[in-house]
């Protein structure tokens, strides 16, 4: 890729990866639980995909294997934590940081990665459309009911534990797509998922807004710009944290709430 387009390519890579991790976090949040470690599933997928790529496994097969491993790990975490209260679930999700710290994988130069950001951007947009369709479906309605009033949800026959396990598994699957595709990013380094990925994913959801699946993508665009812009690049994590704090206080519904309010007028 010509050097002049490198920042643009990096912007798209980051947008796609953060968008997918954010969408996964959004799915769990919709179900009434705060997931603080969704980037761990991206790290797991990357750690499963990278060695396969390094051994010459076809890219698509390696990526699918990574996604599958992440989804299985998500289901296991979901089974373990789905019965926990809101606070306990958030604390339990912190345990995933240990995963982020311990996974290892060959990095970009060793892999001689040559992927195009088009794949990860397309995956993020497809995932947002899929999440939007899911939100409108019966299963999505069930997840929202659990998130909004668990007691009332049970009264209409909804099993909140099952709904949460599904949400965590789907969230891990989306993060797994991000992790698997990130292996093909020329600057791939699995240590980037250590905490930064979680903060970026959370910032994307809070900045973009939890009301719609487009919120995490809108937030991911801002997070990606902050990570690539020469003005904020050096302090991207701090910018994300400030953005997260500011959005929580000033704009709790995120950017998406501005549009939904305008639409209702």
């Amino acid at each position, binding site marked *: 890729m010509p050097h002049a387009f490198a920042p643009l390519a990096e912007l798209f890579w980051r947008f796609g990866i953060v968008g997918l991790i954010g969408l996964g976090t959004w799915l769990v949040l919709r179900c009434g639980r705060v997931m603080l470690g969704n980037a761990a599933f991206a790290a797991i997928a990357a750690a499963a995909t990278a060695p396969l790529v390094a051994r010459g496994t076809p890219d698509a097969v390696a990526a699918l294997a990574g996604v599958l491993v992440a989804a299985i790990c998500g289901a296991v975490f979901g089974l373990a934590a789905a019965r926990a209260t809101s606070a306990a679930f958030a604390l339990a999700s912190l345990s995933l940081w240990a995963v982020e710290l311990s996974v290892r994988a060959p990095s970009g130069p060793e892999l001689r990665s040559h992927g195009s950001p088009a794949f990860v951007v397309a995956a993020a947009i497809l995932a947002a459309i899929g999440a939007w369709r899911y939100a409108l479906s019966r299963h999505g*309605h069930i997840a929202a009911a659990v998130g*909004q009033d668990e007691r009332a949800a049970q*009264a*209409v*026959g909804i099993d909140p534990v099952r709904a949460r396990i599904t949400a965590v598994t789907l969230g891990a699957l989306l993060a797994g797509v991000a992790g698997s595709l990130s292996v093909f990013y020329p600057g791939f380094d699995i240590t980037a998922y250590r905490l930064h990925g979680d903060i970026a994913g959370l910032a994307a959801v809070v900045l973009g807004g939890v009301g719609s699946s487009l919120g995490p993508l809108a937030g991911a665009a801002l997070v990606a710009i902050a990570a690539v812009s020469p003005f904020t690049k050096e302090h991207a994590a701090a910018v994300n944290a400030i953005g997260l704090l500011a959005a929580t206080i000033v704009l709790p519904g995120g950017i998406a709430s501005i549009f939904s309010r305008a639409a209702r007028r």
Partner: protein
Amino acid sequence: MIEVREASVSFGGVKALDKVSLSCRRGEIVGVVGPSGSGKSTLFDALSGRHRLSSGSIAVGDASIAGLAPHVIARRGLARTFQEDSLFGRMTVFENALAGTYLRDGAAALSSAAAHAALESLGLSERANEYVWELTPGERRRVALARALASNAPALAFDEPLRSLDESELELVRPLLRRIASEPGGRAIVISDRDVAACAGLCDSVLVLHAGKAIAYGTFDAVVRDVDVRDAYLGVEWRQ
């Protein structure tokens, strides 16, 4: 349909419900009456599996529901409302009613039709696309009822369904409850209220609770004539 036998619920050393019994068959409405703290909501929570019984038994249909999770009891055919509205706050009126149909097995179109029918029966059709936070307290209460009715569950437990309703809403809801109970196939309905007068002309039998204990159980006329009820609950006005 709903059989409560000698049901007790304890929280630590406190008996919130003490050997309470009631029976509600299809086509009947049973009223549970008592002031705040008398055990009405504890009884409803025990019925729907939110509180475990320390002794006694509860059956819905022919089967005991002891130890079952609330969502399993709902699937066994008991739909309930809560003292607070407990609506899905970021959903529309229609979406709230649609959630009630999750107890049914059927196509999406049938679920949608059932939700619309429930809203229409409670005079909420025109507000179907509004969010529940935009409604009056009485309308919110009616949405909670619509959600339960949309389920088509044969057993219904409504915790203070008449609270917050104005006169015109009461004129709509009271006959509706009576009609639902007595329509072909009939449903068993247990309602609670703080005011025994709410049961007049509505309930086939009335259970009066006081400090977790049943102090009277019978027809409305028999209950309001009961000396214990008058002393403990109805007060001087009823003596006169």
